[in-house]
């Protein structure tokens, strides 16, 4: 993928995540500067296949997802189990890719999402080959954050 293409796709992803969260949870986030990876404990990962193919990851933490899930479902934060948080980030991924597909001008970016899954742990990091193209951005509101990492 060209650098311009990756940059365009990165911006598209960021706008999609912001719109998903605004619409589904009623929470306004904004793109913020990144100084390295945030300390993530929950990550959704999906392969994207179209004219271009790569991987999208959404990284966040339990505190952020607890708030988002509560706002999206109306269930009080204290009543949410971990499974609900995993469902939340999984659905955020699903909706984000759906919006990317709807907004992308180029058919090369009308992705089919393959095998999305969620990884949990502490201090999760994404490792990749140096030659892989990557683009990352972070959307946040206060202490809440979601990082998007694209790998092509």
């Amino acid at each position, binding site marked *: 993928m060209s650098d311009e293409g990756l940059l365009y796709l990165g911006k598209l992803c960021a706008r999609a995540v912001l719109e998903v969260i605004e619409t589904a949870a009623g929470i306004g986030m904004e793109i913020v500067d990144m100084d390295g990876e945030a300390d993530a404990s929950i990550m959704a990962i999906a392969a994207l296949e179209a004219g271009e193919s790569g991987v999208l990851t959404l990284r966040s933490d339990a505190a952020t997802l607890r708030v988002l899930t509560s706002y999206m479902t109306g*269930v009080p934060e204290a009543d949410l189990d971990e499974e609900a948080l995993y469902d939340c980030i999984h659905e955020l991924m699903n909706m984000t890719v759906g919006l990317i597909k*709807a907004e992308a001008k180029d058919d090369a970016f009308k992705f089919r999402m393959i095998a999305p899954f969620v990884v949990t742990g502490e201090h999760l990091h994404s490792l990749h080959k140096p030659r892989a193209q990557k683009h990352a951005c972070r959307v946040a509101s206060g202490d809440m954050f979601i990082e998007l990492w694209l790998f092509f």
Partner: protein
Amino acid sequence: MIRKIIRAAMNMLEYELLEAEDGIEAFNILEERHQDIDLVLLDWNMPRKNGYEVLLDMKNDPRYAHIPVMMVTTEGDKMNIVAAVKAGAVNYLTKPFKVEELIGKVLECVGDEVSE
């Protein structure tokens, strides 16, 4: 996740919600409770049998063909909406959606005619 969101909305409307994890379970519920069902919401992406397949089967079964169906799909799959409407879905909802939008569309479909 979507079922949780829909459940919250139906609780606000004080409607009874019957939930299925996949298309096969959806059909089992239809067999048992079709007389009580006023509206079916189908997510396009379901395991075992997807929402579109359930819609087609419902419309081909005289026991269920009259039950209105609303499809739920992602924004990027608008061609799915066309297919679903052609197959007999009365309404659709694209994700992400606001709860108010869901409630509005459900009320459009069932109005005040909810089973006792």
